[in-house]
């Protein structure tokens, strides 16, 4: 199929394999080895997108990851991934790409009217135009901006791809595989050091893959790349990672790499992840990130067909694509001349080389003349014409006066430009190094290393093939020796050609046009012009950080790698200050846009967080129980019978427990085994209550404070022996309680001889509660006298359940006679199924967390974290009885004595009864003294728990209310949208105030 801009021969594409792809629905052909950009160019397509703000037609500018214009969406799996750079997308058969930011089509875009209205969009227009009226933001400005400006559309369906994560360690990580990077990797690897070499491109080699005018050891540079890569691949101590971007340099030589595993494949293996995150800890890092070419800032420098000179050369030599048939080369440095020569050698008409410099090197002029290329020295491009593709360029001659005289017009269908080279210091900057201005190079270079890294080659402005190789070898050797102490004798390859050349320019070029009417772009992706930068300076933005935010220059996805230096020079010229006084913005992670999928890895869907299940889980599922999430646990919430809603099920469960017997899975409560000669002393210091006199076989409710005096956890603690306690905690608080205990034990009370062990997962716990609890469990328990006298409330004993060892507690969180049977987790299912099967036969019921909550609320038992919020003391909660006042010290004792904690007016724990027994208050609702409080009135407190009580046949609530204990009997109000609800303040115990039910 015709690819009119394909060369006859040459390039690294596989001409034997033709691939079909579509762009905006139109079918094209390319070859294996093409990028989407090179394949489009081979078909003569330059127009690939519309610009962000002005919707101007834009073409492919570069051949790398810094591409600002050619952002496309790629369809796959029935959805599209937006904002991918066509210069990085490897072509595969059947690829479907679409352009972005245009409506209705790329060729005719109504948004282009913005370009004509551009006087309305000056620098900082967001700040100026949309300040007033404020209400217009949400309804008018924002929707318009969103629809008119922007990049691609987000995908509509969940990401179907998978992402992998890999940790790696190495002696030397080399980022970049151009001449310096390859040399560094080889030198390091030959010492035996463990080396990782990554490169964002599909192939290693960097600039060597498009080098036509050099040789290494007498060989074509691409051959040297091939041999070097083969050597590295054969070494066990080397990991080669093409298609892998080092996107983040973090503390302590931790470098994050993004490997694109399947995006380049037509039919990827579904077992493969789309991308893999490499988290690399490197002893030494070699940054071989190279340099990128700078665009020239002249009027209308953004037409499709205008491209960086080195990109034009890369498309020609690497991909076998001519960027045009009549090419104009505009430059300020030597390297672009070689692009012109290569094009001419492939039969492309080079209409002229326009060099800013008055006297370009004679040898270049001689080569140009030999090829019959017109040379215009001391000349600039002052404008371009053509709507969707450049048709001609205006030339201007630089006068000694500094003025520009018209130099005529010249026809062309492509324009290659080079303002010189900018070393890529992004990774160095991310490593927290401070760049240093090198006036002789016109560039910011890596300064002193803050971490264990070194830059090499063009990334520190070492240019020229031989120099880059030498610098790379030295860097690799030094890094390997620093990392592993190893050395090796390496034969350096030597290069011929690939000279560095000279030249380069920063900032906007002079021109003879009407400055107020032309646009010379500095930042292509954000549509920032030279005029915008000057305006920002005039309006008082004098630091580059301010200019950046005001104009958005440098805020594109390349973080200003293309635009910063030109913007800086323009600002510095306008301010009449040296560039070092204007400053350079800091490069931050990530180096290039990185997918969220990569960061999420497998942590999504079912793997987002761990799910913890108890032994009863399957039984609950099979019996129609409903679950609720409590931290990571799945807990049975309620057990509806056929036809029952939640309210009916909970009411029945509550009634059954109060009247008969209920079975509850209490396994999720935290459990900590506290063991050792000083175990009692340790608990004495941790918990508010006294523990030393607690006899083995007895339990006590324990209240845990922090040293500020506030409640942080609670639970029943049983003493199994002089030196052994079974501590329980809340479900959510278990890890923190253990961590807090360890903290005090290790760092404050290292004199105590105590061991702490988490046993939460080691026991399954069945709570059997209700007046018939004793007779219900009796047949299963052996070795324990269950009678009230031998085993009273708050007891613990070891025995057996169905023949397996158990720890049996007589405790209650319902106010009824209650037992909690702890067996080894391996017998959990057996215990639950045995008890659950039996309980229904006996007229009892399994019950869930909702019923547990109602029953405990009827008794006024707090739930830490629901009825308390980290500012509630035991006295506030009405639990002064739990304080061991005679103890010398415990965690929180001194805190409780603080002035504010003993002052009047604290919020206290109370009960609330609505005047209308049918109204159930909303948890979290605010409480006031006035029925209709004025706006701004502070609340007296809030509702913490609220339920319908089957036992009381009415609603009940618990609350925290200012001075609540003294307000029993008072009427307060809970203002709600439907009207204020009057409530009476009561005590917190609604049911069996004497506790008669407990002691049976």
């Amino acid at each position, binding site marked *: 199929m015709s690819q009119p801009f394909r060369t006859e021969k040459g390039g690294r594409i596989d001409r034997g394999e033709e691939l079909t792809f579509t762009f905006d629905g139109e079918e094209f052909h390319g070859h294996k080895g093409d990028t989407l950009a090179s394949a489009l160019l081979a078909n003569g397509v330059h127009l690939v997108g519309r610009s962000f703000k002005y919707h101007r037609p834009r073409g492919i500018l570069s051949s790398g990851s810094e591409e600002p214009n050619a952002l496309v969406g790629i369809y796959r799996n029935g959805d599209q991934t937006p904002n991918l750079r066509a210069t990085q997308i490897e072509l595969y058969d059947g690829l479907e790409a679409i352009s972005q930011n245009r409506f209705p089509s790329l060729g005719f875009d109504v948004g282009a009217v913005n370009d004509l209205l551009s006087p309305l969009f000056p620098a900082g227009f967001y700040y100026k135009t949309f300040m007033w009226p404020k209400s217009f933001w949400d309804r008018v400005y924002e929707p318009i901006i969103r629809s008119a400006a922007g990049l691609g559309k987000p995908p509509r369906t969940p990401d179907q791809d998978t992402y992998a994560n890999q*940790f790696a360690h190495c002696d030397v990580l080399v980022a970049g595989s151009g001449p310096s990077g390859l040399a560094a990797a080889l030198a390091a690897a030959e010492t035996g050091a463990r080396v990782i070499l990554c490169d964002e491109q599909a192939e290693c080699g960097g600039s060597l893959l498009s080098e036509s005018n050099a040789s290494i050891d007498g060989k074509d540079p691409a051959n040297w790349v091939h041999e070097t890569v083969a050597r590295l691949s054969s070494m066990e101590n080397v990991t080669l990672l093409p298609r892998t971007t080092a996107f983040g340099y*973090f*503390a*302590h*030589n*931790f470098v994050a790499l993004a490997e694109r595993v399947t995006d380049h494949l037509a039919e990827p293996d579904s077992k493969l992840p789309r991308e893999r995150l490499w*988290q690399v*800890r490197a002893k030494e890092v070699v940054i071989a990130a190279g340099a990128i070419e700078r665009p020239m800032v002249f009027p209308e420098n953004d037409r499709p067909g205008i491209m960086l000179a080195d990109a034009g050369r890369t498309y020609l030599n690497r991909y076998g694509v001519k960027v045009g048939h009549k090419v104009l080369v505009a430059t300020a440095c030597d390297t672009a001349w070689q692009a012109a020569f290569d094009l001419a050698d492939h039969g492309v008409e080079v209409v002229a080389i326009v060099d800013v410099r008055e006297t370009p090197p004679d040898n270049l002029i001689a080569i140009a003349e030999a090829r019959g290329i017109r040379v215009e020295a001391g000349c600039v491009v002052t404008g371009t014409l053509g709507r969707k593709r450049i048709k001609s360029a205006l030339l201007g001659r630089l006068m000694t006066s500094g003025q520009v005289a018209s130099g005529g017009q010249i026809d062309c269908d492509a324009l290659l430009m080079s303002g010189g080279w900018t070393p890529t210091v992004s990774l160095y900057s991310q490593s*927290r190094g401070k760049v240093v201005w090198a006036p002789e190079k016109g560039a910011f270079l890596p300064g002193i290393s*803050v971490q*264990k890294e070194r830059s090499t080659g063009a990334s520190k402005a070492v240019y020229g093939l031989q120099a880059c190789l030498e610098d790379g070898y030295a860097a690799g050797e030094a890094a390997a020796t620093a990392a592993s102490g190893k050395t090796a004798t390496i034969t350096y390859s030597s290069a011929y050609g690939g000279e560095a050349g000279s030249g380069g320019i920063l900032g906007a070029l002079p021109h003879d046009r009407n400055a107020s009417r032309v646009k010379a772009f500095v930042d292509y992706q954000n549509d920032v012009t030279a005029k915008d930068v000057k305006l920002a300076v005039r309006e008082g933005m004098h630091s580059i950080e301010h200019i950046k935010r005001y104009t958005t220059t440098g805020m594109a996805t390349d973080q200003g790698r293309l635009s910063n230096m030109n913007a800086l020079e323009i600002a510095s010229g306008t301010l009449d200050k040296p560039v070092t006084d204007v400053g350079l913005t800091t490069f931050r992670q990530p180096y290039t846009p990185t997918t969220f999928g990569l960061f999420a890895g497998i942590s999504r869907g079912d793997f987002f967080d761990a799910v913890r299940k108890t032994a009863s889980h399957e039984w609950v599922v099979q019996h129609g129980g409903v679950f609720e999430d409590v931290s990571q646990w799945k807990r049975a919430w309620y057990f509806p019978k056929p036809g029952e809603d939640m309210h009916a099920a909970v009411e029945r469960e509550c009634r059954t427990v109060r009247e008969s017997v209920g079975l509850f899975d209490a396994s999720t409560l935290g459990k900590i085994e506290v063991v050792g000669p000083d175990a009692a002393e340790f608990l004495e210091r941790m918990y508010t209550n006294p523990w030393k006199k607690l006899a083995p076989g007895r339990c006590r409710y324990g209240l845990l404070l922090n*040293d*500020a005096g506030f409640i942080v956890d609670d639970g029943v603690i049983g003493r199994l022996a002089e030196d052994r306690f079974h501590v329980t905690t809340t479900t959510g608080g278990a890890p923190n309680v253990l*961590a807090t205990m*360890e*903290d005090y034990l*290790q*760092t*404050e009370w*290292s004199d105590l001889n105590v061991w702490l062990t988490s046993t939460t997962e080691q026991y399954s716990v069945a709570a059997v509660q209700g007046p018939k609890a004793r007779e219900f469990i009796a047949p299963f328990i052996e070795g324990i006298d269950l009678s009230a006298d031998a085993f009273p409330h708050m007891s613990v004993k070891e025995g057996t359940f169905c023949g397996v060892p158990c720890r049996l507690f007589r405790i209650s969180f319902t106010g009824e006679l209650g037992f909690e049977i702890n067996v080894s987790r391996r017998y959990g299912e057996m215990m639950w199924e045995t008890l659950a099967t039996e309980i229904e036969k006996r007229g009892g019921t399994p019950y869930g967390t909702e019923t547990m909550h109602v029953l405990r609320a009827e008794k006024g038992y707090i739930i830490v974290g629901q009825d308390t919020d980290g500012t509630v003391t035991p006295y506030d909660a009405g639990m002064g009885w739990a304080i061991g006042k005679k103890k*010398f*010290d415990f965690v929180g*004792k*001194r*805190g409780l004595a*603080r*002035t504010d904690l003993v002052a009047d007016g604290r919020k206290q724990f109370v009960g609330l009864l609505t005047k209308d027994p049918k109204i159930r208050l909303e948890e979290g609702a605010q409480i006031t003294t006035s029925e209709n409080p004025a706006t701004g009135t502070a609340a007296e407190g809030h509702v913490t728990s609220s339920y319908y009580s089957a036992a009381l046949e009415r609603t009940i609530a618990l609350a925290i209310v200012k001075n609540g204990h003294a307000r029993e009997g008072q009427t307060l109000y809970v203002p709600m949208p439907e009207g204020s609800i009057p409530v009476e303040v009561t005590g917190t115990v609604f049911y069996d105030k004497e506790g008669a039910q407990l002691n049976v």
Partner: protein
Amino acid sequence: MLLIYCPYCQVERAEVEFRCGGEAHIARPSDPEKTTDEDWVEFLYMRANTKGVIAERWRHIHGCGRFFNALRDTVSDNFLTFYKTGEPMPTLETLPQEAGK
């Protein structure tokens, strides 16, 4: 992600194995009853928040479980040294010159 040395395990491990325990060498007053409100609040809440070298606690929570201390430069994130709980805080003068690099 920081690289942290556990002086008990005597290994360097990634930060994910550890949990930071805040400023080190803040002793809980040994006789709380005799401590003034101001001093107690100082102990509870007041931290130096130094720009520069600080002593901080770390716990090898997914390793040996032990608390230990470290000197870290809050500007560069470089650790200068790690030492066991109970050991005195090293002074900058006593540290070897190459520490922290």
